């Protein structure tokens, strides 16, 4: 097991190094100069040069790469060109919006998907099942930004139940923020819930087909009892994997939704930073997202390996 973990750790490190190089050098070739962008149309070339010196942009590409990577290892992500504050500070502030939004969406999606998937599995082949399956197909086909637009039209502009967007900040109170995150979370959750419900259904059906479940049925347990006691527990593994994947997807994938609801989250930070050519912010945020996914994958692999020794040999 230890050897397996070490092996995985090595490949994780290599992956991270490759990722950091790809990220840095791809982003640095983006046309557009942050200093020129900041100083606008009337700036004189010498002024732009002075600002580039100020920002440290006059140093070589490789020197800056090393400085960036070296800084990240010690937890220093550099200073934003445009905001002039530490990048880590920016990221922490934005995580305060993106993280709750992601968790909220995930909770909603799970709360919808579990019962729906279970019912569909238990009533497999019935009209109800067909209806649910059709509904989830529709949910998957729904572009979340379009759904978000419809939510705003209906709940904000017409009914005025929810504010159309924005984020009051956690110091303004808990519920007011939860309210602000509700429409975005719903917009994110529905398509995810549809996917999850389908996974849930097939996972439960799969386990229901296995011998020990048949035995349980033969022992006289009711259909509901079997589903809840046995099938559900065993179906959890694929479902949890999907939830894990959705978490990282939602964290980065909220970009468009954050724009629709003007939430100051991580996604909008990237968007804004790209427009302003605040490259150091883009690089650091992308690196963190990649790191998060690689780490989650690593942990999932380890858990699987711990649970199933056969997998260790395969690695």
């Amino acid at each position, binding site marked *: 097991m230890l050897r397996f973990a070490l092996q995985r750790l090595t490949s994780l490190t290599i992956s991270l190094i490759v*990722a950091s190089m790809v990220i840095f050098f791809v982003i640095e070739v983006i046309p557009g100069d942050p200093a020129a962008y900041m100083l606008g149309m009337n700036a004189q070339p010498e002024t732009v040069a002075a600002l580039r010196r100020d920002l440290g942009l006059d140093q070589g590409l490789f020197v800056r790469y090393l400085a960036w990577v070296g800084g990240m290892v010690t937890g220093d992500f550099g200073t934003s060109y445009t905001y002039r504050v530490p990048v880590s500070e920016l990221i922490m502030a934005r995580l305060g919006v993106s993280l709750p939004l992601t968790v909220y969406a995930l909770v909603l999606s799970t709360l919808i998907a579990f019962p729906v998937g279970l019912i569909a599995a238990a009533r497999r082949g019935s009209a109800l099942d067909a209806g649910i399956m059709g509904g989830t197909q529709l949910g998957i*086909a729904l*572009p979340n930004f379009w759904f978000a*637009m419809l939510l705003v039209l209906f709940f904000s502009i017409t009914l005025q139940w929810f504010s159309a967007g924005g984020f009051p900040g956690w110091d303004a109170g808990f519920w007011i923020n939860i309210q602000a995150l509700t429409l975005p979370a719903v917009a994110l959750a529905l398509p995810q819930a549809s996917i999850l419900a389908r996974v849930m259904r097939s996972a439960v059906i799969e386990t229901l087909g296995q011998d020990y479940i048949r035995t349980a049925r033969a022992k006289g347990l009711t259909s509901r009892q079997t589903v809840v006691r046995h099938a559900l527990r065993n179906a959890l593994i694929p479902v949890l994997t999907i939830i894990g994947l959705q978490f990282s997807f939602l964290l*980065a994938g909220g970009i468009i939704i954050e724009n629709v609801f003007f939430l100051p989250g991580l996604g909008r930070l990237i968007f804004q930073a790209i427009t302003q050519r605040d490259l150091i912010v883009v690089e650091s945020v992308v690196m963190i997202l990649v790191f998060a*996914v*690689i780490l989650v994958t690593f942990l999932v692999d380890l858990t699987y390996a711990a649970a199933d020794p056969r997998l260790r040999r395969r690695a």
Partner: protein
Amino acid sequence: MKRLPMTLVAGALLTAVFAVAALVSLAWTPHAVEGMNIATRLQPPGADHWFGTDHFGRDILSMIMVGARTSIAVAVIAVGMGMVLGVPLGLLAAANRGGLIDEVIMRGNDLVFAFPALVIAILITAVFGPSAVNAIIAIGIFNTPVFARVTRGGALSLWTLDYIRAARVAGKGAGRISIEHILPNIANLLIVQGTIQFSLGILAEAALSYVGLGAQPPTPSWGRMLAEAQTMIAMAPHLAIIPGLAIVLTVLGLNLMGDGLRDILDPKLRRAR
């Protein structure tokens, strides 16, 4: 042959509607798609313009038809790109199972998966400028590991089969076996996956052109139509609703078709459905 599954029929019909619209638009649209007429802008659906007109007075129906072409073209080519790159990688990895090449390909796969797709798409267009071609490349890149993984998975189980082992013993090279025996046997798998990726490609294209990174004006695209309609949603809701429905119905059609195809082509899975 048994009765075709309902999902396949419904999906194929739905998909066909948009495919036909796209094809017809090559030769004919109800109105010139680039024809602006500021005087007749923002008209609700009516006799002259079945789906109404947009903020430039262009005919929405015509734009939806040409937009279908844009969406389908981008998605098909991106899926093609993913297959062309991904399938050989998957075959190679499977042929090398357990070896270094396998490990490198699979780790590379994980790495691509680890990148946030939309952010990368934005970066690609920031480097090369927004265009349909760059949208294709962005979507294609993320299709590649999907096909590599599916191919490898399918191929791995085939490599354990006796007749493949026999071929190996008979002296056939791994490359020849991959092409002659493995590939034909995983074709069904690839068709099903291709359909799914196709529908995801339509969604991705819509998202990219919604944020302004897809096909450039005056070429109509559904995502950009939605973006442009957004501020007018309260006074001209049809502008936002119609392109959105077009996306949903196309993707729905493709997904249903994918499900149906899987039922026919992959008997192993039928049990679980």
